[in-house]
């Protein structure tokens, strides 16, 4: 098998040539980037675009927060506010959170981590990038020309009767979904067929497991939302009335179909984040993963069970009591799976040798937030309590804990962990820790008051709010400003590091992950010569003792 690669003339140039160029310098024309099928270049293009989308979404978020400084109108009118929060949701969910980790880190690292030279279908990979651009462009065009005011959930019949431009944004979401499907499909096929000799399923890095689980969810859930947004766009444009109660349609059916995707989508956002954390905690504790198989299985468990719990978004929608009960009890399982992961991460640190670098700092924040955000999520699955919390700021705070506190923190952890691998340079550690501190504190100040406001009864998507909520909102806005400062700091020192950072060695963290066994930055074909052979586990930091001599806790 290993010989076959070398027998292919296209795969690797003959021995004795000049040292292979890194993927960053192998071709410097714009064309060599835009038409590149190299998974690493595609990942970098995704990185730039998705961070731009994050910036747009972040500005919308800041506008929302500033508007809430006073109970009445502050800086914009109601219509603008409604558009701004919708666009914040749409941009953050569909343009940032869903594609961020899979498209950037997944694309960059997954092939390297399985010892492959590229993903299985490189051209489809490039196509998915262009689908992202096209979908995002269409959605942005819709936002500029009117802008939807429906909330990112597009609930009918509001979304089918509103006069704002919903249809282009829905079609944009559909196209983004197609791009996501292609990425997921690529990952699944890559993991199944392209693992290097020696890498069995249970020797895969946990990030690969997480990306694999995510890809499965992405491939199986996205088509349903694709159909739903198309039908809603058709309803909005041609009034076919499938979800329009005035024509006998059932708006609750829309919610069922919508959440059948959008609940698993939450796991699309957070599962890869769990994968990053597993890598980071093992590398910086310099220790084997405490319960490797439990984490791997719980990843699949979350991916699978995630498809059976969507109804917990609909407890007050007129859904039947029986359905609500079933959905509620299955929701508890997701909590169990997540708890397993958390315990195993903490267990990994036990007996380790912790190097408190920036990625690990993010892991600390992550650990608090994922437990709190996760358990409030399970709490929201408790039917009677959800009646009070549903559609209040409690829900807003909960999912921001998961989306920002967990997914975003893990994204930043991954960005810092793999920054030397991606760009071959080191960022400044002191600034890194400063950024992490700002983000963590800013996050707490922003979202803890929102929990309290929600508990106090403040509904979400309110342009004006009763005065009793003002104090909490002002604190939250201050936190948002702090968070913004944190992101700005990170952006500055990372951009600085791109040019002026210290040159990185191929493995600056002394990590045993497979991706650290290539150059930093990697060459175009990841590994020079034939497909490499990886005999040992990626998270193993000592030679594995015989089973009877293992230290078990």
């Amino acid at each position, binding site marked *: 098998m290993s010989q076959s690669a070398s027998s292919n003339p296209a795969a690797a140039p003959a021995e004795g040539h000049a040292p292979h160029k890194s993927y960053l310098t192998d071709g410097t024309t714009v064309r060599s980037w835009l038409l590149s099928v190299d998974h690493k270049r595609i990942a970098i293009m995704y990185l730039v675009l998705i961070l731009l989308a994050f910036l747009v979404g972040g500005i919308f978020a800041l506008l929302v927060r500033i508007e809430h400084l006073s109970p009445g109108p502050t800086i914009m009118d109601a219509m603008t506010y*409604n558009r701004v929060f919708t666009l914040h949701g749409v941009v953050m969910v569909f343009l940032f959170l869903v594609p961020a980790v899979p498209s950037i880190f997944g694309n960059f690292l997954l092939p390297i981590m399985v010892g492959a030279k590229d993903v299985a279908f490189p051209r489809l990979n490039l196509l998915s990038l262009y689908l992202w651009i096209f979908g995002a462009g269409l959605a942005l065009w819709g936002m500029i020309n009117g802008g939807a005011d429906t909330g990112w959930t597009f609930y009918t019949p509001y979304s089918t009767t509103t006069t704002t431009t919903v249809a282009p944004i829905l079609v944009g979401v559909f196209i983004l979904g197609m791009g996501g499907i292609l990425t997921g499909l690529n990952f699944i096929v890559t993991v199944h067929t392209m693992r290097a000799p020696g890498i069995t399923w249970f020797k895969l890095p946990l990030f690969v497991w997480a990306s694999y689980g995510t890809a499965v969810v992405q491939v199986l859930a996205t088509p349903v939302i694709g159909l739903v947004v198309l039908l809603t766009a058709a309803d909005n444009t041609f009034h076919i009335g499938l979800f329009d109660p005035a024509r006998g349609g059932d708006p609750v059916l829309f919610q069922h179909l919508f959440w059948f995707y959008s609940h698993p989508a939450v796991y699309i956002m957070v599962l890869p984040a769990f994968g990053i954390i597993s890598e980071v905690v093992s590398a910086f504790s310099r220790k084997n993963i405490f319960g490797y198989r439990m984490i791997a299985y719980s990843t699949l468990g979350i991916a699978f069970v995630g498809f059976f719990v969507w109804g917990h978004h609909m407890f007050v929608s007129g859904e039947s009591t029986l359905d609500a009960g079933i959905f509620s009890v299955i929701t508890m399982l997701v909590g169990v799976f997540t708890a397993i992961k958390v315990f195993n991460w903490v267990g990994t640190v036990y007996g380790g040798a912790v190097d408190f670098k920036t990625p690990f700092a993010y892991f600390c924040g992550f650990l608090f937030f994922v437990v709190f955000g996760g358990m409030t999520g399970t709490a929201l699955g*408790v039917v009677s309590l959800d009646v009070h919390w549903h559609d209040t700021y409690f829900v807003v705070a909960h999912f921001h804990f998961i989306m920002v506190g967990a997914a975003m923190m893990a994204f930043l952890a991954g960005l810092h962990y793999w920054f030397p691998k991606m760009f071959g340079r080191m960022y400044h550690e002191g600034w890194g820790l400063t950024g992490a501190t700002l983000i963590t504190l800013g996050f707490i100040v922003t979202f803890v008051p929102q929990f309290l406001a929600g508990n106090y009864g403040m509904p979400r*998507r309110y342009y004006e709010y009763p005065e009793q909520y003002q104090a909490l909102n002002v604190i939250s806005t201050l936190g948002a400003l702090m968070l913004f400062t944190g992101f700005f700091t990170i952006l500055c020192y990372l951009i600085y590091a791109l040019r002026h950072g210290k040159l990185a060695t191929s493995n600056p963290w002394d990590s045993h992950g497979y991706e650290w066994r290539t150059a930093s930055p990697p060459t175009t074909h990841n590994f020079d010569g034939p497909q490499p052979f990886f005999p040992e586990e990626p998270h193993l930091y000592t030679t594995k003792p015989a089973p009877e001599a293992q230290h078990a806790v």
Partner: protein
Amino acid sequence: MDFFKRLLFLPEQASTFASKVDELHVFVLVATILASIGVGVTALYFFFRFRRRERHQTTEYIVPTVMTEFLFVSVPFVLFLLWFALGFRDYTWVQTPPRDAMDVYVLGKQWMWKFSYPEGPNGVNVLHVPANRPVRLLMTSRDVIHSFFIPAFRIKRDVIPGRYTDTWFEATKPGTYDIYCTEYCGLSHSKMLAKVVVLKAEEYENWVKEQRMGDKQNRQDALADTTLVSPRANLAQQGQRLVGEAGCLKCHTVDGEQHIGPTFVGLYGREERLEGGETITVDEGYITQSMMVPGEHIVSGFPNVMPTYQGKLHSMETAAIVEYIKSLRTRDVVNTASKGPVYEPVRIQ
């Protein structure tokens, strides 16, 4: 308990459901806070205890025992199942209104709440209820989905167009509490606020009496406004009343028999042969014309005896009668007041 409620910013507790659910509320949130702090502090201790002391420090290979794995799974599982069981118990309770509950009809529309009571009064954006008596809300919407939320009662239910949802509560403390719309419903979503006024039983009776004495015209307007059936069906219902009041039924029947004039049943959409020999399809225009200028097109075989209703019916009433006749297009179209918890309009004395 009080301390925790203040710590968690729980709103005032003013219904039986609130007192039922608040303990679980506090239990769940305190467990969440303790667990996250517990995990976090353990982790921080580990970070400190197992910090890297030298550059090439090696570590031991540590794996969980079966017992540890079992604990990892079972402890959260049992805790969450407990949450579920307690939560589901209370949920079924709040989903099943007691039989002796008093009904109030709630209509959400952009951007106001209307409340009507079977026994008479109604109100916009203010809901009056007696304390210590179960009140069932039957709710529907005129346009898009709204959600009816009283934080002090801990109840919430979506209000959906074209169908009815219900919820109930039993207020325990007289006072005034906020009602919010929590399902995003457009421009003035955040202004779709209302109040619920909880009165003592006798005060409530007085209030009802006062309302009944209120001027009839007001209530008739309210009737046209607050009706919960779709506006079209309602128009037909008004038409049904009007054909009696205006005297149409002296000459026209609604049971299919031909009388002095053509029967209304199946009239709409029918091809009619006129006196002059030509045919005409009965549509809205023709029916209206027949009311206003009856002699213009006489259906052959019927005498030209119908008086004009020009000036006697205003345009809404004409439209209502047309709608009623349209609703009689086939025999099997149901046009009677619906059974079940459909809203019956305020009775006019």
